[in-house]
């Protein structure tokens, strides 16, 4: 295969960043980097596998999925409604019991948490042989929230050599989910749709839920957020905390991109199949001229979209198995020769003619400022010529 780097106008693999900037490998001009904004701190999993805080306006290279193959993480705004996410000794965390069950016993700062600090609390649950629904030992917190999708999440591990079967309850407070707590830290999460304004996070043993009779576990990082999926951990210590939304836009200039032909390549995964528009686009800064890939409001679909001089040229979708899995997309655009390659396969073609005008910016949105991309990115490249099928296949394989 020919040297594709020579053909690229922009190459971004997320290795270099600074407050406010995500730098490109190509072009080398740092002033053509992505502009990054987040008006709050946030957390990420670092290369040691530990959860750490990242200051505001600093992009996050996140190692959640792999300690050797991280991704650039972009998330929407979210608020952790649990006021004490790491301190389970607080009275807001209700230690409940019934029947044969004993109230959970909390020991503060008992073990090393996923942040690498001695900040995880020990909680010992015991239902003392109880077998009925009346026999439970439960740690619970209820908060006020809005109607809609909410997600509970929490980090748990066993303090002993034994695994424990426990119940983790959805935000409605109804359906228990069985979880197996091992000696390794795991983050459990569960989503439900609220119709009232009170939501809850519960962890328990209960006689009729096939849980263990006893559990000696460490817990840390409880989170309840008004999203249909769990986002990165938002620490709290006495009140709710909000991680602001992230934006990453404005890479390149008119010299970086070719109006006549090219390829937009993205190695990306969605955070969730949450039925929202999430776009990545080369554009002229408006909705009139743009070459875009986006997740859609339809479940598990990728959308190739080209609009030239104010006219929609192609707006075509392709179903995927699971958009939360990484896929390599390459959108070839050339008048009369449009194609979408996905993971080594030409998935869509189109022969419509077009004349794009003034492509000058690459953004993690739909090109006009809205429909921001929230997801994970391993690489994003723009080539200034329509690559051959062999090249597109090899690139996306």
């Amino acid at each position: 295969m020919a040297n594709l780097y020579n053909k690229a106008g922009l190459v971004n693999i997320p290795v270099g960043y600074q407050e406010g900037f995500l730098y490109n490998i190509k072009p080398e001009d740092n002033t053509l980097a992505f502009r990054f904004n987040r008006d709050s701190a946030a957390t990420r999993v670092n290369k040691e596998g530990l959860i750490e805080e990242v200051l505001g306006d600093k992009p996050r290279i996140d190692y959640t999925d792999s300690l050797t193959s991280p991704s650039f993480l972009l998330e929407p705004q979210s608020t952790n409604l649990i006021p004490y996410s790491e301190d389970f000794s607080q009275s807001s965390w209700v230690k409940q019991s019934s029947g044969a069950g004993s109230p959970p016993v909390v020991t503060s700062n008992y073990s090393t948490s996923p942040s690498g600090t001695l900040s995880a609390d020990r909680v010992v649950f015991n239902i003392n042989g109880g077998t009925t629904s009346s026999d439970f030992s439960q740690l619970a917190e209820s908060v006020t929230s809005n109607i809609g999708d909410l997600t509970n999440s929490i980090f748990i591990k066993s303090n002993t050599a034994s695994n424990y079967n426990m119940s983790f309850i959805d935000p409605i407070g109804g359906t228990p989910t069985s979880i197996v707590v091992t000696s390794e830290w795991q983050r459990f999460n569960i989503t439900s749709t609220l119709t009232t304004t009170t939501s809850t996070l519960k962890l328990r043993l209960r006689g009729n839920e096939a849980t263990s009779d006893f559990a000696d576990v460490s817990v840390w990082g409880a989170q309840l957020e008004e999203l249909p999926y769990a986002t990165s951990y938002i620490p709290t210590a006495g009140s709710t905390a909000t991680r602001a939304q992230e934006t990453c836009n404005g890479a390149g200039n008119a010299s970086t991109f070719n109006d006549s032909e090219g390829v937009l390549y993205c190695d990306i995964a969605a955070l969730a199949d949450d039925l929202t528009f999430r776009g990545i686009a080369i554009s002229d800064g408006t909705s009139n001229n743009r070459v875009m890939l986006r997740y859609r409001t339809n479940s598990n679909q990728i959308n190739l979209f080209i609009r030239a001089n104010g006219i929609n040229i192609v707006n075509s979708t392709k179903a995927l198995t699971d958009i939360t899995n990484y896929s390599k997309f390459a959108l070839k655009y050339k008048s009369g020769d449009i194609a979408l390659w996905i993971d080594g396969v030409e998935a869509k073609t189109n022969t419509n003619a077009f004349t794009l005008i003034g492509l000058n910016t690459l953004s993690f949105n739909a090109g006009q400022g809205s429909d921001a991309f929230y997801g994970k990115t391993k690489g994003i490249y723009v080539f200034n010529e329509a690559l051959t099928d062999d090249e597109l296949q090899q690139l996306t394989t």
Partner: protein
Amino acid sequence: MGLTTKEISSSSFNDMISSVDRRSEYVENRAGANVRLNNFLTPYTLDDKSSILNAPCGYSNGVYASLRPVENLGPELVAETPSNLNGWIDARSNTILSVVNNNIRATRLSEYAATIGISSTGFATVIGKTYEVKIIATKNNTSGSIYARISNNSQITAPVFNEQNTTDTISVDSTFVATATTSFIGVLATAQGDGDYIQSSLMSVRELLQPSADFDFTRGSAATRVTKDGLIKNVQILSGELVTNGDFEQIGSELVTNGDFATDSDWTKGSSWTIANGQASYDASGVSPITSATTSIVSGKTYRLKFKITTSGFARLNFTNDSSQVLFQPNESSVNNFSSGEHTFYLLAQNNSTALKIFAYNGSGGTSFSIDNVSVKEVGQNWVVTDGWSIENGKANIDTSEGTGSFNQLGVLTIGKKYRLSLSAAMTVGRVKFQSDAAGVFIFSTDVSNHEFIASSTDVSFRRFDTTTSGYIDNVSIIEITDDTDLPRIDYTDGTGSLLLEPQSTNLVTYSEDFSQWTSGGGTITTQSGFLAPDGSNNAIKITSSDISAASSYFALTGLNLTETNTRTIYAKTVSGTGTVKLLSHNSNTNNTFTLTENYQRFEVNTTASATGLTFFYGVDFRGGTTLSEVIIWGAQAEDLSYATSYIPTNGSTVTRDADVCNNSGSSDLINSTEGVLYAEIAALANDGTSRRISLSSGSDANRVSLEIDETSNRIKVFMNGGSISAAIITFDASDLTQFNKIAIKYKSGDVSLFLNGTEVATSTSTNMPVGLDRLNFDGGNGNNDFYGKVKCVAVFKEALTDEELAKITSTTQQEVFYEMRDRMLQIDADYYEFGDYTTRLKKLF
């Protein structure tokens, strides 16, 4: 040829860079040069094939250094070895020579002179030839200097080569040109006492057999560049700020624990003391201390002491160390009466201490009181403060009624080097002298701007000049400079280092930074100076309009002699946010509306309508429907070129930067007239309709292989001819020659080809071969058609490489990209992580 992947060994690069180090006064961009080498050499076993290899890293006044060839060295010429006494000479006949731990040592005898030394026996040298010299030596007495020398006599006087250190050690790896047929190598130490010694573990001289392929470089004027930290600087400025804490604003961490008495802890209370309600109270029942352990307080250093007193009478206090010795003397007295209120003093510690012990007294006016907010923090870090000087409120104060000592920062300067001193000063009486100037004391009483001096001491030192002197100095700044005008420029405008070669140009804007000389249109404009500028100074100015549509709403320099075809530039940014404004010319023009952001950009217009007048340079013209009402500007320039060149500062008149000329690399040994390759990674400054060439030649254009960026935009031409001038044999139109391109010309009789960025784009079967090629020039080989542009690499091969090799060396390689990204991120101090999958992802693009 079967290509193999071969990492360039660090030793190869180190050999080259060490060689450049020896030949160059200044070396920078090492990482960038290594990037070029990795791109150029790594994947292919070509590193033995290039005869000339250049990437910007080393230079001196008049010389632009090449990495290859690395000089070959002849045999060792010094017969003696430091581990053996045989042959060594007592240079001044006043020592006993011995060998100690493989060092040849000279120990002074008491009755003789204080300068002692060791010399080799004479060795044969050839006048005019260049030799490498290496010396390592130490002396045991801290007094005096130590010298490493090459001389024509065994007393080591009248040195041909001389380096001096005021420390106790010296290490030399350099070159000298012989001036006699017999030379001596030796070391000396001055001001040595009886029994003191100097010793050396290495004295070596070897002939440099292989000449370098350095370019001759001339310009004859100052010039600016973008430094690796992104600042616009005159290339004659050789250092960043050398004075530490020159604004005296540095303040240390709190040394007192629980100084606000929030809890009844950390303090050891005498019988008359209690701690309650957030304060410590003294009941005046007797002399009694209250003590807090502190981080170490050092005698002679300056501290800020703060505390708050509440009393109806006086708090009579003595601040001592843990041994009850005086620690601080407010008001020059160890015991003082303090009334209610906040008290702040800047004081020299009189003794060392690890505690603050406050004695309270009930006599001599002392009453009961409470004390709170006790604080001790170090100030004046890095300065040595003696009597008569004090550091207070961010200034260094002098008051000769308090003493006549000096005020120093140690180890800042190198004796003999040139520096530029600036500071703020205001004396109410008398004057201060700066006593590090080899020309004599420099006396001042007000602000000092750009006083140039040769250092006579390693220390920055001030002292009173008049018997009675009182006032302050502030913002002390010293940078190293040079008067040299033939310094090549390694420019980092695009984030990576490249040699910048520009034509002559004149800035017609007579006050490019002094905006007090500029005028506004009237009352709608206000200005505020002191904003951070692209050169790191605070010389940028904010221009604000109260009514952007008012006729007076502009800011301009008038009385100029501009033309319609001038290229005008200015640096500008917003105060906050993004917006549009007209810059550089009158608002009636249509090509001067720009979008400004919070980051500096250099804005440019290339033509100006004559109707707007040619005596005005409009820095900002708010009129015309743009959005901004305030902008920050700096660095105005207008030049008679079709494109903007590097910034040329002016201050009262036009200033001309002369043309860069870079020629005469190589020799007939390094360039093959029969076949070879000329390689260049270059970018044009502009498509300006001129011919710009890089050539192998015999000194004229009759015999040459030339690469030309043609008068026609983005056109490359190849010239090859022998004995008489002929037309181009290859013409090719590239996409954009103002971007960096990798270009290789293979020349061989009947087999000429042009490779561009990995692809053979044109060929020729010309057999008109040159003869006598002996130089590589950034011109047409005849002194004309100078190459103006940016150069990341040039190289010469003495054989015609294969097509496969040519394709590879003109392609961007994975290694180049990898190292360039790392280098770029390190330069801007960005967060940068090379994770395991990074190279895998990158590899797919190659």
